[in-house]
């Protein structure tokens, strides 16, 4: 109650901004128009009439999907940075937490890139700007996770998450994936606890979203780990434990070794049961990943229905990312003249 009373004092401006940004998210009618576009020029013309305005106006023709992608990301990052700059404790910490996920992605991207002998100069621009930090470029120095930790990550906020995967093994593909999953597990749990300590509506909204995120990771890790030589115990170590699946569902997941098994586990949880039932592997069906995305969008939209909490910032970022993915998908479909699947974007409104 007290928090609600004083919420606007510290975070009212940021919340107002965020809700304003949110109202710029494309509507179903916009998508309807976008899908009809014949060329990328049409796409640009139509985006001009939306909240994006002139963001592509200064690009020389011909337009490429990459340029659109860059501009979209630039705009999102700009908005987020602005929010971060006007934010006030504890909102700023909350926003920082959001960026940690991008840091993890960047680290993994760089390591895999160096494993494939790519020059660091090519890799750096591909990192997400939200997750960049000063030492990022020097990641290539490290050969083992231990070195990675002592040399690079010690100074970053990710250091505590990394403790679990310090080892002297050489970095290789599987290793990297495990590092990513371990980091994510630690990150999600930490973020979950942080939201819990914030309490109030923030906790209610964010814990729901993060629990889903954790469960999704657990499902995806299980599904992707079939036939990779990852043992059940190793796999179990990667499951984030802050989801609804914990603890029984995770135990079950540990034991399964087929897609149907996963589906059986999900069947015990009503919200996931629907998702698995609606998905299929045939062409034309929606994949389980798309289903998860749809459910995530729904959760994020729900976050906007409540007042006085931080969840909307997280939700806004995620929704905007989804929107960018949608626009890129449509743009790709247009560019490659592959219009049959153009409707496979995930509607937000």
């Amino acid at each position, binding site marked *: 109650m007290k928090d609600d009373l004083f919420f606007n004092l510290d975070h009212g401006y940021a919340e107002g901004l965020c809700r304003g940004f949110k109202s710029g998210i494309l509507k179903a009618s916009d998508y309807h128009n976008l899908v009809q576009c014949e060329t990328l020029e049409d796409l640009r*013309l139509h985006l001009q009439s939306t909240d994006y305005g002139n963001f592509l106006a*200064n690009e020389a023709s011909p337009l490429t999907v990459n340029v659109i992608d860059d501009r979209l990301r630039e705009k999102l990052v700009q908005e987020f940075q602005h929010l971060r700059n006007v934010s006030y404790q504890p909102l700023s910490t909350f926003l920082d937490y959001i960026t940690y996920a991008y840091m993890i992605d960047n680290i993994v991207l760089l390591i895999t890139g160096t494993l494939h002998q790519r020059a660091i100069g090519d890799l750096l621009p591909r990192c997400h700007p939200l997750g960049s930090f000063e030492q990022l470029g*020097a990641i*290539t120095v490290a050969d083992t996770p231990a070195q990675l930790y*002592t*040399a*690079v990550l010690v100074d970053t906020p990710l250091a505590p998450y990394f403790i679990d995967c310090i080892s002297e093994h050489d970095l290789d593909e599987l290793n990297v994936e495990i590092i990513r999953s371990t980091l994510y597990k630690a990150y999600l749990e930490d973020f979950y606890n942080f939201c819990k300590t914030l309490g109030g509506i923030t906790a209610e909204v964010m814990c729901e979203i993060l629990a889903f995120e954790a469960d999704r990771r657990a499902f995806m890790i299980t599904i992707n780990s079939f036939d990779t030589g990852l043992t059940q115990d190793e796999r179990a170590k990667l499951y984030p434990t802050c989801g609804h699946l914990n603890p029984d569902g995770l135990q079950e997941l540990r034991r399964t070794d087929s897609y149907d098994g996963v589906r059986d586990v999900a069947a015990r949880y009503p919200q996931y049961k629907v998702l698995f039932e609606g998905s299929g592997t045939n062409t034309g069906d929606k994949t389980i990943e798309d289903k998860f995305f749809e459910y995530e969008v729904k959760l994020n939209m729900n976050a906007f229905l409540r007042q006085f909490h931080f969840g909307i910032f997280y939700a806004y970022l995620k929704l905007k990312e989804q929107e960018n993915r949608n626009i890129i998908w449509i743009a790709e479909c247009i560019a490659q003249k592959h219009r049959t699947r153009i409707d496979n974007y995930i509607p937000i409104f």
Partner: protein
Amino acid sequence: MTLCQLFLQPDAAYACISELGELGIVQFRDLNPNVNSFQRKFVNEVRRCEEMERKLRFLETEIKKDELPIYDPEDNPDAPKPREMIDLEATFEKLDHELKEINTNADALLRNFNELTELKHNLQMTQGFFDEAQAHPVGVLEDMAGEREIELGGQTTATAGMKLGFITGVIPRERMVTFERMLWRVCRGNVFVKQADIPDLIEDPLTGEKVHKTVFVVFFQGEQLKNRVQKICEGFRANIYPCPENPHERRELAMGVMTRLDDLTVVLSQTQDHRQRVLAATSRNLRTWQIKVKKIKAIYHTMNMFNNDVARKCFIAECWAPVSELDRIQLALRKGSEASGGGTVSSVLNRMITREQPPTHHKLNKFTQGFQNLVDAYGVATYREINPMPFVLITFPFLFAVMFGDAGHGLIVSVFALWMVIKERSLKDKWRTQEVWTIFFGGRYIILLMGLFSIYTGLIYNDVFSKSLNIFGSSWRVKFGDEILNRRDIDTVQLEPTPYNYSGTREYQQMYSGTPYPFGLDPIWQVSENKITFTNSVKMKFAIIIGIIQMGFGVFLSLWNHLHFNHRYAIYLEFLPQIIFLACIFFYLIILIFYKWTHFDGLVSTQAPSLLIQLINMILLSYPTEPESSRTFYSGQRGVQTALIIFAVICIPWMLLGKPIYRIIMNKRRANYSTVTNHTENAEHEIDEQTHENESTKKVEMSEVWVEQGIHTIEYFLGCISHTASYLRLWALSLAHAQLSEVLWQMVLHIGLSTNGYAGSILTFLVFMPWSCLTVFILLLMEGLSAFLHALRLHWVEFQSKFYKGEGYPFIPFSFRLLLDEVPIEG
């Protein structure tokens, strides 16, 4: 205003539209509203225009980067022909290309230059390190964590028997700390870093910003460490420069760098000159080009709204145009057709008959524009309805001034407005983005009139900064002797108001000359105790008189409307009861006010009946004789007033029932008529159908008519009373303004003026500042705003509700001038 259809030859269409755009008197209608913006016919042309605009924007940013002036063209360039568009495109393409090439060249050169500068600094700094090391080899050794066998410099390594490598480079200063820490960690402390700040700012090749940078030298041992250090440098995007180990070579390299730097400076300045030349040439034409491209774009936008008739090979456009301008439009079309190379068939303009409501178009000039905006803010006039603007033009500033009556304040306001009006031309484009300023500037003529009227009312009230002027000499004299004036027990004395000795008493002394002060309020009131009582009474009565006259005028304007729209029934069923009601009660009240003013002088003024009680008694039909104030003005008052009240009361059912009953009768009659005609005349079938349509649109539910008329009636009759009371705000605000300015005088400036001696002059000086500030901010701005809003309300609600519907929509012509006047959006 009429709806026209234009048949345009495809070849001539462009030229015709361009001519019409210059004229700016037609409003085109979108004939394909269902078509997406990118599926229209001329979308490619629009896109080409956008591409050109992009290039022009690029050129403009480049010009601005070099801080060259951009010239505004004196004349208004015509929209170029479609053929010219290709030329323009080519020109822009060339310029764009040229500039980009120059830029890439300049960038490469600049980067080279920066690198060399960095290298120069690098060499200088490292030279410094090595010199230092040479000078005090022992000291450095001690510095370097003791027992490790490391020595510095190329020559000394040989003696130590170990090869010591080093890397030098340059890094942005803010990254230095993390860089150092990282080096230490990765190499486990087996490196030695030396750094020095570069004093100059170095331009970042990507962003063009000037940044601080630092030179570093890293010493290490062995190949492996070298790899690592290199990787870290790469990761931190530090620029690594080779640095020969031999001091001799170093010096040579430094010399080489210096000469190359000199060469580069020359080349750089040359490219810069070239760039300047190109840009300067561009900047002269930039604005013209921008206008041209804008015009082309607008023309194609308009043409996108046309219907394309494939069979007859022409475009069909629909537009609203003022009837009086049709000739000019024809002329423009002919000119357009000729300009496009004399098409065989000229464009045709065809007037259409339509049932749609046309847009409302007022011919305005810069003086009336502001007032029209005030009216339009309430609602754009219904088509051909009477426009209250010409009346508002005078009544608005007048009502404002009644509330803002102070000649001094009015003077300041009008001087400010006069400045804006006189400097109009030069001020027009200044501060265009400042919203507050544009509001003031847009209303400069309103403010001017408001100021002038305030001076007038201020003189009537005899208020100049709350003080009175005694221009003609007061009509009153104080003729009491000293013995009365010096008596302790008397605070106030009353002046004798009668100019002659009516009663014949001996102690009568004439204090009032008998002729009133020629203009406005007698300044004697300034010193009187009962000034407020007096001015209140006068201002209140004036407020009522002004209000009732304005409302009556409004009702008469509604008569005009009825006559214009040929609503004969409305004259009898609406206008007459309204005006009779108003006359019976409120005009009568005005007559009473004047009667009271003229028939009671100083001698009998104490027995004058009270107007308020008279009015209440009139409504209640009671005529008591007891207190004196409720006695009648004249004999026979009772009969007259009863008759007036009866007339007024009859008006209410008259208005309430009249119109609905008229509707019912008309509907019946029309139904009879149409059945009759249907039976007899088939020839008139078509017309008949039209009337049917007419009816179907008009045939609204009778209950709705009843409810609407009921609301209308109640609104009017109650409104008359409440609106009259509402006009009392004229008095209230004027009182508030006068009191506030008086308080300000008494509390602030008076302090200074009432102090004697030198202290007084200093104090006055000190006190003047707050007094003038408060006068401007509170009395002029705040009070002015509130008086403005109240005057606005009096016009919108009290005046316009009597006759103005305001259900139209504005006429927005397709005009290049309007298009170019728009403030460019920054972004």
